[in-house]
């Protein structure tokens, strides 16, 4: 195992703190936090179970709603999701720490001697139908898992050498490690019925036409792999990087010390990726890191919490400036020229930068992936789907970042994968309900067994 290279910015709760924090939950009725969670985890219920030392029960609540509940606990922007809706936030400006409690519960489960899938999910008998899933990212794995639980034989095609998608290649290493991700991937595959084919790329190793003829349904969880360009002179110089691609290098580097780290770093963009690369470069030793965003700070898609996190790491955030040119300097470093957007004077300034990172978004790669099959795209260049996540081609579904509209969140991708599994099941089995079985029926059987034996005892004692 690699040494931890980045310090975790949000430490896990220990058992005592988890217990104290869990006691803060009011167990709201029709809880706002549940509604604010894209996967609708029953948050008050899992917190109550932590409070009552029923940690397996807590993990069941979380993972049945969100099979990647462990990763989401670490990377979700809880300050704009569940925790923003927490009634304690209204009452006292301090929500219950739902994310950290979820991490505690899932860590306890995964760190138990044998994190048994059957404690959470039980796979239905194989139904003889086959589904292809393209992309082993959050959407693809979630869909594959949901389908496998329903009894499908699922083949997951992944272009890269490891499964996990952006979880493995894109998330900030100070939030989640590769070990965490692979542990989760293995657990998900552990439900059975899922074959993972790594290093198999759509359009290179197989085509959509092929999948359509070989499987009963196809799910595309492709992600976004083309990088937007700034369209300014100097953009192609050495030392100018796509942030997401560099984060991938950081995450996969055998020796982080071998990565190039500039003393002065400029990051262009305003989303989570900009924040992540800025903090990572700072932690890797950059002396000065400046994020520059074209509009006001409030318009950045990075949350105020994320911005504060970056500032606490010493990152400078400048707003209202757009890059116009990247100059080279004789010593090999650069200078980025910006134009202020809040003045009509066209005032310009330059920032020196040994490295420049572009974090301005990614788009769907438009290689000829489909073969003869043509999928409709939206105006924003993502795959168009209907309410059931079905594309313009019957039997081909899509979800995650590659569809529109997307919020580029792991948790949304997981939810879409879960819903896609139900949609595919409903389409292939029109007479059955598309509900994912999760072992709950088993539990309710057990419950009725208990109540029956109680009643038996009662009637005996009344003889």
């Amino acid at each position, binding site marked *: 195992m690699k040494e931890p290279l980045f310090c975790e910015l949000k430490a896990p709760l220990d058992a005592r703190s988890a217990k104290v924090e869990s006691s803060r939950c009011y167990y*709201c*009725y029709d809880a706002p936090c549940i509604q*604010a969670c894209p996967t609708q985890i029953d948050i008050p219920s899992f917190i109550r179970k932590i*409070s009552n030392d029923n940690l397996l029960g807590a993990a069941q609540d979380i993972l049945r709603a969100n099979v990647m509940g462990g990763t989401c606990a670490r990377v979700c922007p809880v300050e704009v999701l569940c925790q*923003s*809706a927490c009634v*304690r936030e209204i009452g006292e400006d301090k929500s219950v720490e739902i994310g950290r409690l979820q991490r505690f519960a899932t860590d306890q489960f995964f760190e138990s001697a044998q994190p048994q899938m059957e404690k959470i999910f039980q796979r239905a008998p194989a139904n003889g139908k086959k589904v292809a899933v393209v992309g082993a990212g959050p959407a693809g794995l979630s869909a594959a898992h949901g389908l496998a639980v329903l009894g499908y034989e699922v083949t997951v095609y992944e272009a890269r050498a490891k499964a996990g998608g952006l979880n493995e290649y894109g998330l900030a290493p100070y939030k989640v490690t590769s070990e965490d991700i692979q542990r989760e991937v293995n657990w998900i595959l552990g439900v059975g019925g899922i074959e993972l084919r790594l290093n198999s790329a759509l359009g290179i190793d197989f085509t959509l036409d092929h999948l359509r003829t070989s499987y009963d349904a196809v799910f595309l969880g492709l992600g976004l792999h083309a990088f937007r360009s700034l369209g300014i002179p100097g953009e192609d110089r050495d030392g100018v990087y796509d942030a997401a691609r560099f984060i991938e290098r950081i995450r996969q580097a055998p020796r982080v010390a071998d990565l190039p780290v500039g003393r002065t770093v400029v990051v262009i963009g305003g989303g989570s990726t900009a924040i992540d690369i800025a903090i990572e470069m700072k932690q890797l030793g950059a002396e000065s890191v400046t994020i520059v965003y074209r509009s006001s700070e409030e318009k950045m898609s990075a949350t105020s919490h994320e911005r504060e996190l970056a500032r606490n790491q010493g990152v400078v955030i400048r707003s209202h400036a757009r890059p116009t040119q990247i100059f080279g300097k004789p010593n090999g470093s650069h200078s980025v020229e910006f134009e202020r957007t809040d003045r009509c004077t066209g005032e310009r300034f330059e920032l020196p930068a040994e490295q420049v990172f572009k974090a301005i978004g990614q788009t769907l790669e438009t290689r000829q992936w489909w073969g003869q099959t043509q999928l409709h795209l939206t105006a924003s260049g993502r795959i168009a789907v209907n309410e059931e996540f079905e594309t313009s081609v019957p039997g081909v579904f899509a979800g995650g970042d590659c569809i529109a509209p997307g919020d580029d969140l792991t948790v949304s991708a997981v939810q879409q994968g879960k819903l896609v599994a139900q949609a595919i099941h409903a389409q292939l089995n029109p007479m059955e309900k598309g509900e994912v079985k999760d072992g709950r029926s088993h539990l309710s059987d057990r419950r009725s067994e208990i109540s029956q034996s109680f009643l038996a005892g009662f009637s005996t004692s009344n003889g």
Partner: protein
Amino acid sequence: MKSPNPFWLASAPPTDKKINVERAFRAGWGGVVWKTLGENPPVVNVSSRYGAVGWNGQKMMGFNNIELISDRTLEVNLAEIKEVKRNWPDRAMIISLMVPCQEENWKNILKKIEDTGADGIELNLGCPHGMSERGMGAAVGQVPEYVEQVTRWCKAYTRMPVFVKLTPNITDIRMPARAAKRGGADAISLINTINSIVGLDLERMSPVPHVGGRGTHGGYCGPAVKPIALNMVAEIGRDSETRGIPISGIGGISNWRDAAEFMALGSQNVQVCTAAMHYGFKIIEDLTSGLSNWMDSQDYRCLQDLIGKALPNVVHWNELDLNYKSIAKIDQSQCIHCGLCYVACEDTSHQAIEKKSALSGLSQSFHSNYEVKNDDCVGCNLCALICPADCIEIVPQETGKDYLPWTRHPQNLLRT
């Protein structure tokens, strides 16, 4: 008998030894009831003695013990009592006693107590575990005739004031209270601890506290027992036979407000134990200053103005006004939208709260609003009691109707 303040430490581990009691007096406690003395040879105590009930992260909501009376020799205790009383002449020093239920035994020990200079004695007729199986403690307190007899012996053989400490492990507290009064008791102390198994260790399948994997019932005390104690204090204060007898109130008193409640129901002073065992003797500062500041704010000039003040308002159910009406009112500006009032009323009460869809505006969109259906609300208080934001008030309604007790209600077939 003098005491610089009405706060005494009850007979228990905190008053077991000179070192504890002097620490308490230095901290400012007004008096102590020394941990119960018995005859030689002293009792033997077990290892592992206390258990507790916590609730939602709070420790010691309820507390119990399986400890017996003082396990030191009578001579050691008496010497220390004498010394402490000499060092702290302004503090009340009451000695708790428990000996076999025979005249000679009580007569013998009283003489020895008088020699210490103590201010009074408290008869431990309440300890519910260990001693009761030997015919002492609660075994005496549960039989009014014994209570009266022992009290009478003590009054006959000492001129020291006699407090009789009652057990709550009885159906009607007025019976032993009346017996104590008939026996000549100068005051009544209550409550002693309540029979309890405070919890089970589900792995050992043993009660806690456990002694080598087995346990026994113990005496329950702490904040959880206060309501039981308040009722018993009020019962004695309202009873025609016992009304007016000085009461030393005991049972879960943790702060000045608890003390004020006991006094308003007729306690002349109060005894504290669990709160001191939880936080140490320093809590006396808040007890005295809190009570004093509150009394000043309410214009009570002395404790006698407060003592028994609430007793006239403690009445039989039959005397309550059936025409009185109150309903819940939610302060929407303070509501945090948790929905607990709604689900409690909907699931378990009167379906008198309405859930309204989310407010417009993004930040509030997950939150519902809750409104009281005035016509359906019976003013039961449940919503106000559970509201974590304290934003529900139960508001008295003007009905224009006269006082109507059950004794005169048309639906009462036996009305007068």
